[in-house]
């Protein structure tokens, strides 16, 4: 390779590098050639560029869609942004926890029957990790599914002294629908909850 050819290849490599960096999508060799021109040995340029990025934090990857820069897979876990703000239990987690709290011990299938959807693995894992639920043996039916119940930590978490402190829907229904006759007693119940 002459010195001039060398300089041309180096320049083409810079251009391809910038092009693939700025492109929103992977580019195939035809699209790259449209920018770089046809006077360049594109395959060789791409190979050199890929070699330059080998082992770096970013790699030049080739897929069926074309060439693109991607962060090195081994860094994925370290690149995660850490969010230390408090976050609320998701609606799905709250519902699952509520069914377990009110109906315990229950199987996953029973939770699904109430909610209409089965709790996801991620939700169950989160509740377990938080120590809010625990297995309570198995139900003696075919398949022997695990029964779930709440833990002492659950009471702590919600500031309850016992499970009896959980207000029941019926108490409210009496108060709401049975008219004033029930009001006297209903109020007292509600206050204790």
């Amino acid at each position, binding site marked *: 390779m002459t010195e001039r050819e060398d300089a041309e290849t180096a320049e083409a490599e810079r251009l391809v590098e*910038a092009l693939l960096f700025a492109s929103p999508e992977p580019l195939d060799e035809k699209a790259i050639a449209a920018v770089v021109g046809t006077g360049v040995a594109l395959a060789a340029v791409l190979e050199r560029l890929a070699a330059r990025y080998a082992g770096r934090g970013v790699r030049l990857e080739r897929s069926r869609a074309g060439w693109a820069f991607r962060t090195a897979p081994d860094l994925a876990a370290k690149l995660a942004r850490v969010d230390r703000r408090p976050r609320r239990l998701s609606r799905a987690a709250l519902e699952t926890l509520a069914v377990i709290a009110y109906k315990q011990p229950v199987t996953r299938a029973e939770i699904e029957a109430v909610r209409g959807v089965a709790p996801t693995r991620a939700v169950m894992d*989160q509740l377990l990790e938080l120590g809010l639920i625990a297995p309570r043996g198995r139900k003696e039916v075919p398949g022997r599914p695990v029964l779930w119940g709440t833990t002492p930590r659950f009471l702590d978490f919600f500031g309850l002294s016992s499970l009896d402190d959980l207000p029941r829907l019926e108490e409210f229904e009496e108060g709401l629908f049975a008219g004033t006759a029930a009001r006297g007693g209903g109020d007292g119940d509600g206050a204790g909850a």
Partner: protein
Amino acid sequence: MVREEEAFRVELGAFSGPLDVLLDLARRQKVDLAGISVVALAEQYLAWLESLRGRRLALAAEYLVMAAWLVWLRSQLLLPAPERAPEADREAEGLRERLAALEAVRRAARWLEERPQLHRERLPRGAGERLPVRHEGPVVADLPSLVGAWFRLAVRAERGRVVRLPPRRLWSPETALEHIYRRLTGREWHELAAFLPPFSCGLERRAALASGLVACLELARRGEVELRQPRPFGPLFVRRLA
């Protein structure tokens, strides 16, 4: 304020306001701005304005205000020094300074324009990757949201069951009136509840009780029966009048 700036530019070319016109005219004098003749500038401006009016272009008030001021300034500057209004020289100097300041800003704008701009000379990463987020903060939830979640589920389950039930049996006030009137005999008091149909569902019973009460009130209005309720919200009693 010249709010019409955008519309106006179409008619007046590239000028944004009268000061812009004056700067352009001043630069055509080809001397530095400090040495510019304000008298000549005023005359050029007025001539320029006249040429526009000849072409029947609508002018914003700003251009005419500037013209009026320049007419005054020119007349003052043409007087011998002792007879001039003392502020005229100051005003002329102020105009030169404003033109110089505008020219400097224009050059600064041109300098910015020529910078290697983002998306023009310098492209950002086109396919930015969304980095994963790892939550390490505490998880919070309160009792009201837990209980609320349960109540929503329970009410939804209840509604789901209602769909499977037969349609509600309702006792209309007309039916109730006919039913009670036919069965109410003798001169004794009868508890209204005794006349209700054997509905077991709480809601249907309460609806029937309401219809029965309406029926009894109608009968009482007609003078057919009298009603008695010994205590508030207690049972209702009805008897036929003679």
